[in-house]
């Protein structure tokens, strides 16, 4: 039974918090810019590689330990990646603000190819590792084992979600973002500077994507397709929470992450309940079921 906690629920929560951070960005962009951003996964990858470069670019890595280096490099990478995304928005998304949604979706698809190939050109297709070696787990009560990096990821994700909550409920720009997500037309005639809100949305969504990417790299490995490979699960999380609703996305991410891991627990007999080959399908199945039966997401009514 303790295996369920150690090998299914805890990794599921870690994975889930990564999905959640990605899903918040997808959800915010969907809510405010009204399109499903296919380039979001590759934004995660880009942020991770930029973080990697910052760590190695400066003498940080040699002098201070990795956690401290990350504390400095990640925020820097968030800003750098955010600025890149703003340029992308200016060049490739803004011309389509008043066009049918499908056009921007296709544009974001083109962007996905462009970001990914840029990463492959600049950093190469080879694997890289944010963290090398084996990390021994911490034991609690002799049975619960948790990896230090997992503790760090969970805490960092919680802190980030707390910051997002504060931003959305207590700052002017955050409230304006929610207002624009509610009704973009009304936001315009109310005098809200919509382009500024759009910029804030990209910056916040990208910052979270960078964090999600770095956590992904800490837990697994870095490669050009890392972000794309979680994109659909991130979408599923955003849907589960009710797309356009950041708080829902947080919950959705955790549910999808844990559900994926639980689907292979030997609930009946010795074998996994579902062949692990279908693991990726779990998030899709949940997503489709949600769309059909609860299209407004888990939490009906309240959006924020």
């Amino acid at each position, binding site marked *: 039974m303790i*295996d369920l906690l*150690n*090998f*299914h629920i805890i*990794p*599921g929560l*870690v*994975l889930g918090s*990564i999905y959640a951070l990605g899903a918040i960005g997808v959800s915010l962009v969907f809510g405010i810019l009204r399109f499903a951003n296919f380039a979001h996964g590759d934004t995660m990858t880009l942020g991770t590689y930029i973080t990697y470069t910052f760590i190695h670019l400066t003498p940080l890595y040699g002098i201070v330990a990795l956690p401290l280096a990350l504390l400095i490099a990640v925020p820097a990478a968030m800003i750098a990646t955010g600025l890149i995304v703003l340029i992308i928005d200016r060049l490739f998304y803004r011309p389509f603000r008043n066009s049918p949604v499908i056009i921007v979706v296709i544009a974001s698809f083109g962007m996905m190819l462009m970001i990914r*190939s840029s990463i*492959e050109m600049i950093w*190469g*297709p*080879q*694997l890289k*590792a944010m963290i*090398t*070696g*084996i*990390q*021994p*787990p911490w034991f609690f009560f002799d049975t619960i*084992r948790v*990896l230090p990096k997992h503790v760090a990821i969970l805490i960092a994700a919680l802190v980030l979600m707390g910051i997002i909550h504060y931003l959305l409920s207590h700052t002017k720009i955050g409230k304006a973002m929610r207002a624009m997500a509610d009704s973009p037309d009304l936001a315009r005639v109310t005098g809200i500077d919509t382009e500024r809100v759009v910029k804030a949305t990209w910056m916040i969504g990208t910052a979270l994507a960078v964090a999600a990417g770095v956590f*992904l790299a800490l*837990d*697994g*490995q870095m*490669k*050009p*397709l890392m972000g794309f*490979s*979680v994109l659909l699960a991130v979408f599923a999380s955003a849907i589960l929470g009710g797309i356009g609703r950041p708080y829902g996305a947080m919950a959705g991410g955790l549910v999808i992450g844990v559900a994926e*891991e*639980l689907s*292979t*627990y*030997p609930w009946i007999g*010795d*074998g*996994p309940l579902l*062949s*692990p*080959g*279908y*693991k*990726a399908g779990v998030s899709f199945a949940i997503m489709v079921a949600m769309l059909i039966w609860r299209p407004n997401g888990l939490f009906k009514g309240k959006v924020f």
Partner: protein
Amino acid sequence: MLKTVKQVMLAGSMLAVAMTAASADDIVVGSAAGITGPIAELVAPIVAGRELAAKHVNEQGGLLDGDTLVLAHADSQCDPTAGVDAGNKLVNIEQSVAIIGASCSGATNGMVQSVTIPAGVMSISDSATAPSITELDDNDLVFRVAASDAYQGVALAQLAINAGYTKLAMTFSNDDYNAGIASVFEQAFKDLGGEITGSQMHEPEKQSYRSELSTLSGGGAEGLALFAYYGSSGITIVRNSLENGLFGKFLAADGMFDTSVIEQIGADALRGNIMITQAASDDANVSYQAYAAAYGPAYESQGYAASAPYAAHGYDAAFLVALAIEKAGSTDRAAMSAALREVASGPGTVIRPGEWAKAKAAIAAGEDINYEGAVGNNDFDANGDVTGMFSVNTVGDGEGYTTDLIR
């Protein structure tokens, strides 16, 4: 509309430029590889291996009358559709004499069945290992220097038994390569009296395999037979297992054979705990060393190791094609496959990697030659497969792999 027409014409004229790129003194050999796509990191060193062979040929007198061997690259993306498209371009636009590749079994299957066999062009793959390629009705046009999974799976099973394993858990990545070799291994290990306590397919590119491994670890297995590409899931599985104490010992095939496994996991954690099989040559030390001595300095700065999976196969495939062209004495596509068989197998003067000048002289003198490649003697059987010898690679006292030939 006029604008569109202009753009189309512009594209057309660029195409014309592209088509006249190869000059009269170039002999073009197609090189299809999954340069982009899911195993891009695996393919880059292989393509470098092919390029290295071409460079050796061109530095040491070139082909035939001093012609230059040019590799025309096409991206088969590890996808049958792209494989067919790549094959079409290499055969028809580049007018390749022969084709090296493609990388993945699926892309190779599509390319050879739909393009190269009907066109009568010989192909030689350096990394497609699926047994189904053996069964192709190929008019003796499809070869490969990578041993079929059928051989390596058995070798690994034998190795496991010899090392004293009786109960193993097994997991394999659900892709064309690993699923194939895993099924052969499972059968062979059972035939040799071993027990598979649990066998699970896993989906590559996931972030964590802890739940799968935890289920597998329940059966009292002594180790884990791991069939995966190191980049797609292999390293993650080893790390998840070690960090959580689920499995301590690993047996793996050549998809795992890369120095990045040691770099990322650390030699200390792997020492004495992992065995990886890889195709090797009879005279491993001579031929392989000759290849590695050239590959290392050329590509290490780009992060490619000579020991990268199938990089040596890439070298051998390209070198063999060059030998076949030289032997045939022309660029006639129809003469390639017979010439290939002649240069690959004994008896004859033994040629090793890097020895193009020697080979060219021997062929000119009318001698028979026998290429002993970096990865094996490359004696093709009736199906165009090599039986192959295998080496076992372990992490020894140092920071790298220690290689021993399996006898």
